[in-house]
């Protein structure tokens, strides 16, 4: 690991100030992806600005018909949160299945989303539930947030402060874990909202995406059977030593059905 200067500001404005004018500075959240990549010397930064001490970034609250989760909230906290379990149980399930318990004790929602690993679970939650990313500058619709492989719509120095999840009528998350990394080989969030059904898929492609053909079918009939006969095109999907694009395409339909079953339970 290359060395860096470590900062741990107490205020969001200080964090933003520390990033200013330092093109090689990086925010540190839970560090579950950042530190391994530094250890393997895949990345190098001049400064790490640790967000752990900023109280404003912590916590979970119900705000009307939404749940707002502070960016530095750890996965274990989301998974165990009564607010989340009551309002959006699928999100608690998702958080409770990330990595392993030790990773969940450390990793954060903001860090996961900002990193935008193509196989991370949270992006499916954000896109599938139609969440909004709140930053220190603006609000970004989940729709517009994930741009590509490890690429998001944040500007230089912009800091995620929270994620607002509208409470769906029903939702379910089903994940086929990668046999080694325990990321998602395929993860599917299905949500029935007032505005219609949303289906988001992670793990299969360079970035999370919505499965619009399934959404249309589920709008008509919110049941696993409604997906019978849906063929997912494997065209752009990832192929690696663990799964071919073809298998991932198939697994999406299976996991989507299981997510629907979970949503209906």
């Amino acid at each position, binding site marked *: 690991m290359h060395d860096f200067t470590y900062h741990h500001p107490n205020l969001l404005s200080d964090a933003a100030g520390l990033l200013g004018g330092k093109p090689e500075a990086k925010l540190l959240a839970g560090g579950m992806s950042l530190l391994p990549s530094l250890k393997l*010397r895949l990345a190098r930064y001049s400064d790490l600005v640790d967000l752990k001490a900023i109280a404003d970034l912590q916590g979970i609250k119900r705000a009307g018909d939404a749940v707002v989760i502070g960016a530095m909230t750890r996965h274990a906290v989301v998974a165990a949160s009564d607010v989340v379990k009551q309002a959006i149980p699928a999100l608690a399930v998702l958080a409770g299945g990330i990595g392993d318990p030790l990773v969940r004790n450390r990793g954060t929602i903001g860090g996961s989303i900002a990193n935008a690993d193509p196989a991370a679970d949270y992006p499916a939650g954000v896109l599938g539930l139609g969440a909004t990313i709140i930053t220190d500058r603006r609000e970004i619709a989940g729709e517009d947030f994930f741009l590509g492989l490890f690429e998001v719509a944040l500007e230089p120095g912009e800091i995620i402060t929270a994620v607002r999840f509208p409470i769906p009528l029903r939702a379910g998350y089903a994940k*086929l874990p990668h046999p080694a990394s325990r990321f998602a080989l395929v993860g599917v969030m299905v949500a029935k909202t007032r505005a219609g059904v949303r289906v988001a898929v992670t793990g299969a492609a360079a970035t999370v995406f919505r499965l619009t053909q399934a959404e249309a079918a589920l709008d008509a009939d919110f049941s696993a059977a409604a997906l019978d006969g849906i063929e997912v095109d494997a065209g752009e999907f990832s*192929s*690696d*030593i*663990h799964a071919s694009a073809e*298998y991932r395409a*198939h697994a999406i339909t*299976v996991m989507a059905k299981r997510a629907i079953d979970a949503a209906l339970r």
Partner: protein
Amino acid sequence: MHAPATSTRIGQPVPRKEDLRLITGKGRYTDDMNLDGQAYAVMVRSPHAHALIRSIDSAEAQAVPGVLAVLTGFDFIEDKLNPIPNKTFSMHPAEMPLINFDGTPAFNVSDYPLPADKARFVGEAIAMVVAETIAAAKDGADRVVIDYEPLPCVTYTVDAASPDAVRVRDEHDNICIDAQVGDAEATAAAFRSAAHVARIKTWVPRVAGSPMEPRAAVGDFDAKTGRYTIYTCSGSTLRLRRDIAIVLNVPEPHVRLVIRDVGGNFGTRGAIFPEQPLVGWAARRVGRPVKWTSERSEALLSDYQGRDLAVEAELALDKDGTFLAIRGSNVGNLGSHTGNFSMVQKGVEIMSSIYRMPTAHFRARAVLSHTAPTRPYRSSGRPEVIFVMERLIDLAARESGLDRVELRRRNLILEAELPYKNPFGMVYDSGAYHKVMERTLELADWRGFAERKAEARKRGKYRGIGVANYVDTATGIPREKAELTVHANGSVDVVIGTVSNGQGHETSFAQLINEWLGVPIDKVRLITGDTDIVTVGGGTHSGRGMRLGSIVIWHASNKIIERGKQVVGLLLQKSPGEIAFSNGLFVAAVGGQSMTLSEVAGAVTSRTDLPPELRGPLMAECDETINDAGFPYGCHVSEVEIDPDLGNVEIIRHTTVDDVGRAVNPLIIHGQTHGGIAQGVGQALLEHCFYDASSGQLLSGSFMDYAMPRADVLPFFTTEISEVPSTTHPLGMRPAGEGGTTPALGVVINAIVDALSDFGVTHMEMPATPERIWRAIRGKPQRSRIVPDAVEQQISLT
């Protein structure tokens, strides 16, 4: 749960003494060693599977602050050091010899720990940077400029055996040994008369042993005495010291090797690895101790790997299902070194397992490829061929319409037929093969399976069951020595040439002393792994630790008792024959006077009235060469459920009965079986060192891609110990460390194929990943490489 131990003698499940150190963080693994003034080494590893090394420019690296030295293969040669010798065959007299069919010697070449000519696998160490800190060494390593000329490579076993394959060694083709064993003519005749023939063409892929402690070595050099001290983790002591001395070009006594706690071995670190002599050399060059510790990704690239055997085999049966003959061809992948041919030696010699097999013929080849070197890994060669044999039997059952258990019953060797010489010349000693299989079937409730299968189907799951018998040949270095010293305070020191890599020798060996000398186990101190103290011995491999350790400790204990009787006789004015010894007490048959063992130990060192030959410390040694092999055997039954939507396999039950002849510590033995099963299941379902065929890159280069078995992929196991005394061991013991793994590959795949039989699936390649199973269910080809289906169909697995 086991009943708790009622004593600490042989046969008791005694909780381990070494635990108290290891559960409190006081273990001393190699990386825990810190020597004053130590520097740190980092290896620069080849990014190419095959490349000429045109030049190495280390100027920029040398300039990095903190960097003390950059060492390359050119420096190594300049310093007149030697390449690492390979010992390709087991020369154990009980082992089946392998010779080239044309009579030429097998190809064997030594390997430089840092090659100066070519890189021959991705991850091969090419240069070593030594610095004040690991970070500085890494900074330096980033700046070593190696000018490579990349060359084409070959990674797959069958590809490497092809006559027009790219050569790993310019001076020889890739085939290091090409042997024919058995009786070709008789076998051909048997096949001509066969009513049924079962055929298989398969590949047992390569896996990584992955002990949880990464490899490490700390080297120290004393310039005054010219002596090296190497602290490291290994299964070997004196052989490793000899090999390090050869490489460092010094007499053996100029190397002291120290092995303390070792975080797993499983065979893949039984042999010398390049960094062990390199840290010694580096210490001499920089004048300070040098430590090297592997990172996991580095370990996956450069640890010795295991398995990798391509097999074509056929089994001939008569119309009643009696085995007539087996024949085929085994090709083992050595990787880039002519390291060890065990996979085709140990493998082929028990190809027919414990079944009556009138005749056999096999071709055995070991080939070089541009991949990490392979070495024996947990049961070496045997899991591969037992997999093949047990798959063949299930295929034959399908082919002939006979029941697969009945087919095994019909052909398993009977107790009365033992000792039995198999068609490769191996002589199995003793055993109750039928009884053990029947007991395993009973424990696993084989009869009740149909009901469980039907119940699973109601839940949408496909349930399958499989059975596999096995035998192991335990050989290894035949010479072992024990030195026992009884102290006046009642304690006993045992110096022995074995080394524990987690097998619990401090406890099980102490139980032997408790049994024979009556000394409490906490008063027994086991001293191993320091070549300044241990002078003879073979380390731990091939089920030799307890098997040979028990013999030499037993004989040495008897010598202690004999001498004690003489001393006591003299002191009590009796003849030695009138003195009995039991439970640590010498008692006169007449009169009943007694002396304890510790009193005798005190007397011989303090009394001046004893004759000279009885004076001096109460110690005895036994140095023996034991040329008999051990033949542990047993049976596994595995039961799985498959989710047909995704192809996921869940192991529901796994039942074993292993014959260990005589169990010293059942707690430890069951633990060995559990761990062995997990390694077998890991290979069957998850693990694979995946080399890309065209680039030679390892695509499973970290624990993010190399799938280790975790707690949630395994069930509780049902394991039972059988004790039919071995007739090749004076105490009746058989090794217990490998039986968990040997049949596990075959039994799990047999269960999966059984579960998938409704879909017409007859075979599954390993690892049986969800995708492979999903494809098999749909009649699609099972992917062996990342290629389109159309191409896959063109590729022969073997």
